[in-house]
């Protein structure tokens, strides 16, 4: 039991490190390029901005859920 818990914690710690690297890259790439465009959209086309905002947040959630699930499965070596 303890061995299993230790294995899960180790896998989770590694997942967090890998995930943190991906997130930092994401901050610099996506947010840096999107920032100016979204600001301009928000100032001039509110309805388009509102639609894009919802699509972005849902799209990102689906993507991140897939990434975290994939990382967990890969690191634990089995399906949850």
């Amino acid at each position, binding site marked *: 039991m303890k061995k299993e818990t230790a294995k899960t914690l180790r896998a989770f710690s590694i997942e967090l490190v890998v995930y943190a690297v991906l997130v930092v890259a994401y901050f610099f790439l996506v947010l840096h390029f999107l920032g100016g465009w979204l600001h301009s959209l928000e100032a001039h086309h509110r309805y388009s901005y509102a639609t894009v905002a919802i699509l972005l947040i*849902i799209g990102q959630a689906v993507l991140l859920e897939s990434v975290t699930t994939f990382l967990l499965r890969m690191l634990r070596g089995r399906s949850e």
Partner: protein
Amino acid sequence: MFFPISGAHISPIYLALVGFLIGILGGFFGVGGSFIAGPALRAVGLDWNFAVGTDLAHIVGKSVVAAKRHRALGNVDLKLGLIMAIGTIGGAEVGAQLIQLLKRAGNVNLVVSVVSIVVYVSISSFMIWESRKSLASARPNTKRDHSAFSHVTRAIQGFKLAPMIHLPASGVRVSFWIILVVAFVGGLFSGFLGGGAGYIRMPSMVYVLGIPTHLAVGTDLFEIIISASYGTFSHAIKGNVDILIALVMNTGAAVGAQIGAISTQYFAGPKIRLAFVPLPLIGAAIVIYTLMSGHKL
């Protein structure tokens, strides 16, 4: 990091950590976590109207992750969630209009702060009474979701105003109008105070509709995806959403929400409800501190 839409300077690590914490709470309790996120965003200088709208956007993303996990665990009543979404959207629109009225009157910060304190303290007081009573009267080692408030729930379920809705996933038969009222009240608070208003709706689903706690958590998250998306759209066209802040918060929430959702399977209903009690109180304490310190009110 500078966020040009709201004009705020906020650390992305702070936002991701706040998202992570709220993700765990949201996945476990089925709440949006606005009682933490709202004050946490206010604490770094974001105006209330931006805090409310941005928090709603972040909740959409977090709820997608947590609801997907709860669905895999069999904790989502899709029929109930879809019906509730109708009432919640109506209520959220009325709440958002109230925020606009207060913005024009110039006292949005004070009114929202006072209302949120009253609501948070009331919910915590009721839930600590109910869950402790339920735990005291429950049989040892039982897995059944028992509630000390069940006599009131049964009386509400006995109110047979057509159309009656049968919810096989939850094992409940209740009037459509009661579901709609519960959802409308939740939506009203969602639009007014921000977040998905799970702090109102999750307890209401358990105590008023009689939904088992685990199903209430998962269904609430599913319903929040629909209603918070509508709320986000409504706030975004009013200029209250900084989507860049929400996207950064969601990077932490995606991990936290999965941890929270998986953890629910290890706890019985009354224990989840008792553990819920401190959360609104923490939110109230942060709002009181912000009011008393006079930090950008």
